[in-house]
């Protein structure tokens, strides 16, 4: 594929992720922070987000499997996940966490377990989409092109 085609594909894909609510304006903030001297910034932050999230989701699964659920602990984990997803603009995951926290407050185990499933699903989706986006970016750069950030209307 030519660079121009790849760039067009990048723009379309990015726009669709915003349109479908996977990403919000905060992700654009991350993109703005990427430049020639920090060409991998987005990939690095996103990678940290993945590591963090996987750990938290695993901790949440464990915590909700317990005989007597420690809702304070569950809430603390969800709060962290909400924070990091919010910081990178992973909107669906963030919104799932907001719903999750209210079930924690109610001490509703089933509600929490449903939320956990929802978060896992949305996390998995955004993860594969971000990975695809970053791969496309790397291909563009490898082919000598630049990421056309300016084509995304803010």
């Amino acid at each position, binding site marked *: 594929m030519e660079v121009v085609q790849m760039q067009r594909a990048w723009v379309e894909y990015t726009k669709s992720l915003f349109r479908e609510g996977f990403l919000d304006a*905060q992700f654009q*903030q*991350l993109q*703005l*922070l990427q*430049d*020639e*001297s*920090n060409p991998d*910034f987005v990939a*690095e*932050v996103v990678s*940290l*987000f993945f*590591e*963090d999230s996987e750990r938290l989701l695993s901790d949440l699964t464990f915590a909700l499997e317990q005989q007597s659920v420690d809702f304070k602990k569950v809430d*603390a984990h969800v*709060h*962290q996940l*909400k*924070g*990091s997803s*919010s*910081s*990178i*603009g992973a909107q669906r995951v963030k919104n799932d966490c907001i719903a999750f926290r209210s079930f924690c407050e109610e001490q509703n185990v089933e509600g929490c377990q449903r939320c956990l499933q929802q978060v896992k699903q949305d996390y998995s989706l955004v993860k594969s989409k971000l990975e695809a986006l970053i791969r496309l970016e790397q291909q563009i750069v490898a082919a000598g092109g*630049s990421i056309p*950030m*300016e084509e995304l209307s*803010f």
Partner: protein
Amino acid sequence: MFHIHCAGLCSSASVLVICCKQSFYYSFSYSYTGLPLALPRGENMDGGGGSRENVTAGGAYTEELHVLAVDDSLVDRKLVERLLKNSSCKVTTAENGLRALEYLGLGDEKRTSLEDNVSKVNLIITDYCMPGMTGYELLKKIKESSILKEIPVVIMSSENIPTRINKCLEEGAQMFMLKPLKQSDVVKLRCNLMNCRS
């Protein structure tokens, strides 16, 4: 797109506009062209000490701020570090209050002489919700210390709770910022600091 809104008390409106505009143009140009502008941004980001005078596009001078950023979230530390570095700040990060205090020379070992680190840090920015010592508790410790109390402390939080905000401001926090942080927040921050310094 970049809404420059500097909340807080401004003694000089024109100075405020100038400093905001500079930071705005600086960030804007740097981000959109993708080409590093030939602006001296304080080369020694990771070493050296003392403030340095930088000339920005508008011709005015900005000092290089050394900021200590405290947050238990790795993602947020990375984000705040990049945001600050893009604004010509030297950044040191700490993952909790204790580490922050150690860096500032208020660790378990009481030191009688001023630590090098202390004289270098111009600003502390900390998350509110942290396990162990909260950002509020860290703020208190800093304000209680005769050697550290003059350093401005900014609190960040993902939760917009007025009582929390007031509590921090009453304890001497310079500013309270809502997460997630954006470039415009750092602009606001610099305006706020420059205004207070003049």
